[in-house]
Every structure is written in C-alpha cells, then in structure tokens.
C-alpha cells in the first residue's frame, strides 16, 4: 500500500476510535479535509520584505496587504471569509481600491485569519498563506505543509527563523519543505539593469552555502514588483511606458537617475506627474528602467514584454521550484502533516484502544520509504552522512532532491522511452547494490546506499 493510502486509512481509523470525543473528531475532520486539499504554502519573512508582493505575483492579481494571516485558495467566484475567535466565519466583501483588490475586514479588528476564495489558475494546486511578519515559526507552520521564506541577504535572524522552524517537533518526521527566496532582487544591485542576473548568482552561491543548504531545498531570487507587474500590466500603463521608451536613451536616463527626478515637475514628455508617480509605485525605478530598456530592445508588444518580465523577474523559476519541491510532493507533504496531527492527538488524548494506531504511527514514521528518502536528503545536505562527491550528486538526484518524477530522478533532460529508463535504472541499481554490499565502506555510506537501492527497486516496478 502506498504511503498515501496508509495514512488515509489511519485517519479514518482514528476517527472511529475517537468518535465519542467532539474535540478530537473536530481536529481529525479538519485534517481529513486538509488531506485532500492542495498543498498549503506559508509565505513568511521579515517585515516589509515583500511577502504580499510575492503572493500577488504568484496569484497574478493584486491584493492590498493585510496584517493578519490571509489564505488564498481556488474558488469558483471571488469570496472572502473572516475567522475571528470561536464561532462561524463571517462573509465579507472583496472590493477594489485603485488597481488593487481589498478585503473589507474593517469591522473585525482582530481577525485570526482571512480566507479568500479566488478564481485563478495558479491556485489550482496550491493554497497560499500570507503571514504577518511578527508571527512565530510555530504559528506560521501550524497550518502549512511547506514554507516559502523571503529574505534579502541571508542574515543571522533569517537562519534563526529557519532553524527554529526545523527545531520544532513539527519537523521531527522530516525537514520542513522550504524554498528560500531572495526577494527584492531588483534592489540588490542598486537598481542597475543587470541587478537580476547578479541576484541569480547570489542565489546560486547561497544554494551551496553550508549554513543555508541544510535549511532549505532551494534558493531562488525574485524581483517581486516586476513579477507582479508582469502579471498585471495594464493597457494604459503599457502605453505610458512605451511613450517613455520613445524618449532618447540619454535623456531618459537623466530623468531616471532618481525617483524624485522621475516624478518631478520638469519632464520632457507631456505626462502627468501623478501618472509617473503611479508607474513608480507599481514598478519601482528599477522596473521602469528595465521595461523601457526592454521595449527599446524590441519587446514592444504587451505579450512579448510580459513573457520577458516573467522570465527575468525570477517568477518562472520560483514557480518551477514550487512545482518540484511542493506540488509534485503533495502526497508526502500531506502525509507528513496528517501524521503530525495524529501524533498531537495521541499526545493530547491518549487512549487504550488507540494503542494500535500509535504503533502504526511509529512504524510509518520510522520505516516509510518516502520519509527515509527525505531524511537521507537532509543528512546528505547537512553533511551528517558523507558520500564521495560524484556519488553524493547521484544519490541526491535518485532519491528525489531535484524532483520526484522518475525522469528527474534518473537525470533525463528529455522524455526518455521506458526501455531507455529501464537501462539507466538497472545500471544505477547494480552500482548502488555494490556500494551497499561493500564491507569496507563506512556504515552510514552503506545505509545510504541501501536507501538508494530501495528507491531504484521502487522505480523499476512500473517499468518492468
């Protein structure tokens, strides 16, 4: 039976055992519901780092930032509910303020969370949770299956947050799935045109940094404002930007030296200062510089420009990361959350007839192969388990550190046919079996090799 099914039946069994306790039943029902939902991703980081901006960029719509937990999930029509204290949630209006959507939670000064249902293609596989910056790791991770952590440069405070997140008993089964995001990538290079590529380089350096690597699965850089702009660029804005680009390069550069100059009174074009101010607020001085440069380079239709912006802003890479590390692993992330929920339940309300379930929980956590893979990934990346360099890369790939699909695990860049996959797999299997049986290898190496062998065998099954 797959992990997915095992955990599902455990949840059902627990519901039967605890049917007389209303609190436990409520808890379990919410988790049964959560189990079938898309992956919940919490977006966290320091204040003013751009959490809401990144959330907006991922949804592709602009929402005014809020000071409480805001959940965005897919829905057939725009709706919002406010959960405040015990009792039923209150439905509230989603209005518009300027270009942004705004959830009218005015009458609730202390909302526990706001749930926004929004029809969006990007929300089909994920639920996004925008968190307030003062929330503790426990609060952030309590409801989330995975974490997007935003930061500028990796500072000690950021590492502390991530360590605390992984310290928490919630992380016992396996590491919290985290993608670190260097947000505000546009500000990194003092707003130069090439800022984004150097931000990407910095992200690459952090990916190899020993302090950062064990704490997250990937580091990507994102220019939040630009990403939002790419998704929400309007006709009038595009027209204004095109008008700007029609100016001479030197002339425009002079006026793009500072935000003050750009929005100032003296401007060579008949363009209202308010319009320029609005452009600044939407795209930032860097965004205006980059977009005008791009238009001049020939990306002069809205479609072409949008494609360029998505790619350059790092939004595409962020989406890929979310797909590889979160949505493709939905089953295991959900299983992990459900097992933790069961663990909490058994601790809070221990029972005689739940003994079997508790034993099952222990067994699944200790022996489920998916968790063993995740633990090995963490151990290899943190250096607790050591393999020779080329073996380590291969092991990480095979156990799914770079993607959980068979193709990604086998390292095929293209759609290889089953026969080819089988060949590659058998080759890997034989080699890793040899390592697992090598009496002279250290114990941890052999154990790692055994896990890899088990992975290979699992992959072989559907191919034969």
């Amino acid at each position, binding site marked *: 039976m797959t992990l997915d099914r095992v955990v599902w039946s455990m949840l059902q069994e627990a519901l039967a055992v605890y049917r007389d306790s209303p609190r436990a039943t409520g808890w379990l029902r919410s988790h049964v519901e959560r189990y079938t939902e898309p992956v919940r991703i919490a977006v966290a980081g320091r*204040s003013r780092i751009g959490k809401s901006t990144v959330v907006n960029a991922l949804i592709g719509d602009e929402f005014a930032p809020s000071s409480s937990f805001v959940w965005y999930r897919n829905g057939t029509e725009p709706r919002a509910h406010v959960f405040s204290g015990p009792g039923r949630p209150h439905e509230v209006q989603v209005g518009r303020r300027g270009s942004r959507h705004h959830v009218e939670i005015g009458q609730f000064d202390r909302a526990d969370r706001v749930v926004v249902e929004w029809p969006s293609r990007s929300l089909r596989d994920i639920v996004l949770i925008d968190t307030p910056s003062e929330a503790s790791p426990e609060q952030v991770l309590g409801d989330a299956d995975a974490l997007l952590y935003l930061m500028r440069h990796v500072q000690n405070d950021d590492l502390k947050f991530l360590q605390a997140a992984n310290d928490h008993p919630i992380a016992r089964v396996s590491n919290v799935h985290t993608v670190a995001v260097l947000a505000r990538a546009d500000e990194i290079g003092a*707003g130069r045109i090439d800022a984004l590529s*150097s931000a990407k380089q910095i992200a690459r350096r952090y990916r190899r940094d020993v302090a950062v690597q064990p704490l997250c699965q990937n580091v990507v850089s994102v220019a939040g404002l630009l990403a939002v702009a790419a998704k929400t660029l309007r006709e009038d804005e595009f027209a204004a930007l095109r008008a700007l680009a029609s100016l001479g390069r030197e002339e425009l550069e002079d006026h793009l*030296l*500072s935000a003050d100059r750009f929005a100032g009174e003296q401007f060579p074009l008949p363009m209202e200062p308010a319009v320029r101010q609005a452009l600044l607020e939407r795209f930032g001085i860097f965004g205006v510089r980059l977009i005008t440069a791009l238009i001049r380079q020939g990306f002069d239709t809205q479609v072409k420009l949008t494609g360029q912006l998505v790619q350059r802003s790092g939004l595409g890479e962020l989406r890929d990361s979310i797909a590889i590390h979160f949505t493709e692993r939905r089953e295991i992330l959900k299983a992990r959350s459900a097992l933790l929920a069961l663990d909490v339940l058994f601790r809070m309300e221990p029972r005689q007839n739940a003994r079997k379930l508790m034993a099952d929980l222990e067994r699944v956590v200790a022996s489920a192969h998916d968790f063993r893979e995740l633990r090995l990934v963490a151990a290899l990346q943190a250096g607790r388990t050591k393999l020779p360099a080329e073996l380590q890369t291969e092991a990480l790939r095979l156990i799914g550190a770079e993607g959980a699909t068979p193709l990604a695990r086998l390292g095929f860049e293209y759609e290889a046919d089953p026969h080819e996959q089988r060949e590659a797999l058998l080759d890997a299997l034989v080699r890793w079996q040899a390592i697992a049986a090598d009496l002279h290898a250290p114990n941890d190496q052999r154990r790692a090799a055994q896990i890899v062998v088990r992975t290979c065998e699992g992959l072989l099954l559907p191919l034969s």
Partner: protein
Amino acid sequence: MAPPWLDVLDETIGACVTHRRPDLEARLREKRAQQLDPKLRVLVVGESKQGKSQLVNALLNAPVCAVGDDITTTVPTFVQHADTPSAALVRNASARGSIFHTPTERIAVPIEQVTKQVSTAHSQDVVRAEIGIPRALLDNGLVLIDTPGVGDTRSAHTASTFATLMQADAVLLVSDATGELTSAEMTLLKKVMEACPNVTVVVTKIDLVPSWRTVVERNKALLARAGVPAKLIPVSSALRLRAAKTGDQRLNTESGFPELLACVQRDIVASADLLARRAVAVVASSAITQLVTPLREELTAHDSSRTAETISTLQEAQRRVDELRRRSARWQNVLNDEMADLISDVEYDLRDRTRKILREVDKTYDEADPAIGWDKFEQWLEDNLNEAATTNFAWLMERAEWVAAKVAKNFPVYREDLIPGSVLPDDLLEPVGKLDKPKIEPFSIPQKLFTGLRGSYGGVLMFGLVTSLAGMPLINVISLGAGALFGGKSILDESDQRLKRRQAAAKAAAQRHVDDFFVKFSKDVRDAGRHIQRSLRNHFSTLAEEFQETLLESARSAKRAIQDDQTERERRLREGRKELDKLISLYKRVQALGGPVMELSA
C-alpha cells in the same frame, strides 16, 4: 596646556591601576593615545548591503572601497589623507591570534587593486586595508573607516566591526531607504552609542525609493521614541557619483551629500575637542561604573568571600564532630550486637560438635567391649575433642576479626591502624582433666567356674530326679550332661551381662568427660569473647577520642580565624568606603566634561 579631560582620564587610569583592572586600563590608555592623536576616526557601520562602501566612495569621489551586489567588504578599510595615492593590506604576522596585541605586517598593494584584493581576501589573516588618497576632506586628520556589515552570517566580519568601534571618534550608521530602521539596527545603534556617542544616521539609496521621505520621517520618529539624540541625513551615493562624473552641481545638491559633508565638517572635524570630551566622558564613566560595582558589592555583602570560607570551615568541623558522635553510638551498638551473636553462635557450634562426638561414642560402645582397647579409645576421644576445640576457636577468631572490620566500617573515618592487630587473650586454653577410666571387672576363671557350677547344680538335680523314677541313680549320664549344658548357659549369660555393664560404664565415663570439657571450654570461649569485646571497645573508643580532639581543634582554629577576619573586614570596609568616595567624586568630574548624565549614587 593639557586639555582638562586629559587630567580626568589620567586619574581614571590611575584608579584602574589601583583596583587591579588591567583590561580597563588598557582600554583607557588606548582611548588616551587615540585622543592625543590628531586623527579623527569616523566609522561607517550598518547591516550588510546598505551601501556603506558606496557611501565612503561617494564622500571621497573615488572608488576606494569594494562595492558589489554580493557581500564584498570583508575587513575594515581605513581611508586617510596621503599626498600620493597608496594602499596596503595589514595582516597578522603570526598565523593565529586576536585582533589586538599581535604583531602585524603591512603589504603595499597598488591602489587600483586594493578593492579586488579586499573582496577576494577571504583568508582570515588580513586584519584591515589601509588606503591613502589626497583629498581636502581628509586634510585635517579625518580617517574614514568602512566596515563589514553587521549581522552577516559570517560572524568574523561582525567581530572585526565591533573591534574597530572602540577606536571611533564618530560613527555614521548607514541604513537604506527601502525600509525603516529594523529592530536589529536599533539594537546596533544602541550598542554603538555605548562606545561612541557621536552618531549620525545616514539614510542611503534615496534615488531608488519614491517614498523615501516617509521612511525618513518614520526613522526620525523611531529615534525619538528610543531617545537616541542622533542626526538623520538622507543621501544618494549613486547621484553623487554621477554628479562628480558629469560635474552637475544640481545633481550633487540632490544627492544630499553637501549636507552630509557639512555635517561631518561642522560636527566632527570642527568640534574635535567637544567630541574628545564627550568620548572621554563616556569611556571613563563606563570604566568607573565597572570599578564601583564590585567595590560596592564588597561593601554591602555581609560576608566577604574569605569570611565565608572560614565560616564554612568551622561549619564543616562542627558537622564532623556531630557526625562522629552520632556514628560512635552506632559503632558501639554494632559491636555489642555482633559480639552477642558471636558468642551464642560459637557456643552452639561447640555443643553441636561435642554432641556429634558423643553420638559416635555411643555407637562404638553399643558393640565394642571397653575392656579391649580402652587406651585407644581414650586417645581418639581426646583427639576429637581437641579438634572440635581448635576449629571452634579458630572460628571464633575469624568472626572476631570480621566484627572488628565491621565496626571499623561504621567508624566515621578510615585509618590504617583502625583494625586492631590482635584481640585475643594470651592464657586462653587450659587443658581439661584426664578422662576417668571406667571400672572394668574382668570375668576370672574361678568366677566362671563358680557360675558354671551354680548353673549345673539345677540341671543335675532336675534330670537326676526324673531319671531316678526310671530306676536309675540320681547321678547318671543324662543328669550330668544336662548339668554341663545348664552350667555352660549360665556362664554365657553372666558374661553377657558383665559386658553390658562395662559398656554402660564406659559410655557414662565418656559422657562425663565430654560434659566436663564442654563446660570448661564454653566458659573459656565466653571469656575469650568478652575479652575480645572489651579490647575492641577500648581500641575504638581511644581512636574516637583522638578524632574528636582533632576535629574540635580545627573547629576552634576556624572560630579564631573568623574573629580575626572580623577586624580585617572592618579595616577593609573603611578603606573601601574611602575608595568609593574618591571614585564618585572622580565620576562627577567626568560628568562635568559633558557626557551623558547617568545616575551613580553612593
């Protein structure tokens, strides 16, 4: 004429010497040398990627500090005036060591390469970079120090920043306009204020942020709320560098740098004396506070550490005397109980052994005739009794030693001679009297003859009378034959009875002897036991007395020590008060120099 702050500083250094605080002294001396030095050090600090190096570059209009998108500044860079541009890396001559007090060596590098060298020099041994360029701003001894970002993951950077902080005359705290001051930056600011009170907050990158004015306003509010009297100047290094390239005066004004330069000139260069006074006041008062705190603690604490030590010695001694008393009751009990047990056990053992011997004797004389081999029997009995006595006695000795060991274990202290060498009385075993030989009557021939005749008489008469009826004479063959038979029978009977009597007599004799032996020997054993008990008791009580005397002596000496301490302490108290008064008056003078007002009461 020496400035007034110099006297105060020297006096504070003197106080540090008297109070044996070489660390504070070194710090103050460093400050003193630095204040006498005409150079003015302006430190540029802030979190990483706020534009510190770019600010220095823009101030000087020269690319002297490494700037880049990733973390570039890894060591402090000192920029000062020189007639010709020059640069050098300073590295620790020894491979290991702290930033201070290690010999350093300077390596001259071309000025165009220094930025590259600094940003790539990840080797730990480069301590700082020194750059000299001809600039009017630096003409009057101003030194700009660019530092690695604080709060970076590579903590070595942060450490070197704080090390340089101690040498600063003024500090420019850099925070960019993309966000207001974070709590980490406020903490940093407060930390900086402790070491150097002349702080100016510079908000950089205002060209990037449309809403920088709100950020500046918020920062001002934050500073006011935290009670930090620091100036706040918004600048844009990019605009300044651009203005320098194009010679655009208006752009220069827009960059905010003229104001920053004026501020540096006015507040830092021109008022060097005020700065010196303020800096000295802060450092000296922090040093004095550190001196006063332990002094005051010593004065207020009721027992200084030495007294506490003597008191604890006394308490320990008394505790041990009590312990000894408690334990001696215990060992006496152990001794009494064990000896009572021992004696009863030994007695039982002895009775058991003698009874076994007696049983053996009974068995032997149920069959054997004591008349034959009495001597042999006597020997056997004697041997057996002797063996029983020796075994029993050996057992007694063994048990007695064990008792001594057990008592010793219950004794409060251990010593080599704790277990007595010998506890046995010398005149122990007196031999028991000889075994009385039982009276054995031998069955002699005449007695046999007489007994035979007496038995045959009845037989002859009986059968003679019967046969006379048949006409035979009274004495005939038949009657004579019967007489012989009867005679033989009575001789046999008689001898059997005599054997029984002899056996009973022998058994009684043996019994008597064994009883004698038992009574005598059990008395001896009992005596020996009592003797052992008495000698053990004497031994151990002598030891206990010795111990008690030792302990009491140490308690007495501790008591004396406490009394001595009392007078010593009073003397120290008086001295301490005087010292404290002196320090407080010194502190007041330091305060008069114009430092921040801190409360320090007696």
